[in-house]
């Protein structure tokens, strides 16, 4: 079987795009870089990664300007059709600003850029992105961010907790993030954002290979989405059973 294609969207100021592409290739996917001015994703794409970096110089609010980029229109449509989307670090900030994910990322409480390995606990292993992990598993992943303190109002926080949308938590308080949240999904479960960098944790020689668990799961999800789309196209009368789950339209 051919490698599942994963698009990595490149914004002006992205700087982990090539690392993400390298890591995706290492876990068996075929990465394709998509420039932010593109209005469509290649038709073969089975998943999307929004990489880390400092898109548009972090002007206004981190991720705010990138959320309006033409490529984000295509990403919204892809997500609404059930396509798996993973936002890493700045990608997580962009997904929150796009309202594809709940909450917002605030400046770290210590007001310092934090750059080190940290423990991350898998709270929910029943997601597209964490199903190669077990619930309660502690991953070692690097973080490097200045605005990583996730915040949501109390009602949202409890609703997300109850629904298992808080997928990853830090094992220690690294940045003032509410509930030590490190990663969340949308309600449908096909969009996830996280501040830690799985693409920098692929080789035990560099400290940890735990990032491979998340990225390999994404590659699986890309293959499944590609198949689901192909079978829905080939047998339109069987839609419903074979079509990908539909997300609610974003507000």
């Amino acid at each position: 079987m051919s490698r599942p294609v994963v698009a990595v969207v490149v914004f002006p100021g992205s700087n982990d795009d090539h690392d993400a592409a390298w890591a995706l290739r290492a876990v068996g996917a075929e990465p394709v870089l998509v420039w932010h001015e593109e209005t469509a994703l290649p038709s073969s794409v089975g998943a999307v990664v929004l990489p880390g970096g400092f898109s548009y110089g972090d002007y206004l609010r981190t991720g705010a300007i990138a959320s309006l980029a033409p490529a984000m229109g295509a990403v919204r449509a892809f997500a609404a059709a059930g396509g798996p989307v993973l936002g890493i670090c700045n990608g997580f900030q962009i997904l929150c600003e796009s309202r594809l994910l709940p909450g917002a990322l605030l400046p770290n409480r210590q007001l310092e850029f934090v750059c080190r390995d940290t423990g991350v606990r898998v709270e929910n292993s029943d997601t597209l992105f964490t199903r190669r992990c077990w619930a309660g598993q502690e991953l070692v992943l690097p973080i490097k961010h200045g605005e990583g303190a996730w915040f949501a109002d109390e009602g949202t926080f409890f609703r997300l907790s109850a629904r298992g949308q808080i997928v990853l938590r830090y094992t220690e308080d690294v940045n003032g993030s509410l509930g030590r949240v490190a990663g969340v999904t949308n309600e449908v479960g096909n969009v996830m954002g996280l501040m830690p960098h799985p693409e920098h944790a692929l080789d035990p020689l560099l400290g940890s290979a735990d990032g491979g668990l998340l990225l390999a799961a994404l590659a699986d999800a890309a293959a499944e989405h590609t198949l689901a789309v192909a079978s829905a196209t080939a047998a339109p009368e069987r839609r419903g059973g074979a079509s990908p789950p539909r997300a609610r339209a974003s507000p």
Partner: protein
Amino acid sequence: MFVRPKEGILDPQGDAVQHSLEKLGFGVVRVRVGRVIDLEVDAADAADVRAQVERMCSELLANPLIESVEIHLGES
């Protein structure tokens, strides 16, 4: 317009500025740091300007989850 971190939202930048002012000997107990955005808007009247600026806020200029906004209109 003024964009400020909402009440109850962590403002580490404000805290850092407050600590520095304390070191300088000022009796400042609380600082919140926001931003000012000056806009010149082509519009029919004040109500139109306000409506446009409110839309700009919801679409880009502020995140209502974490920021509060104050709009002041003047003649240019």
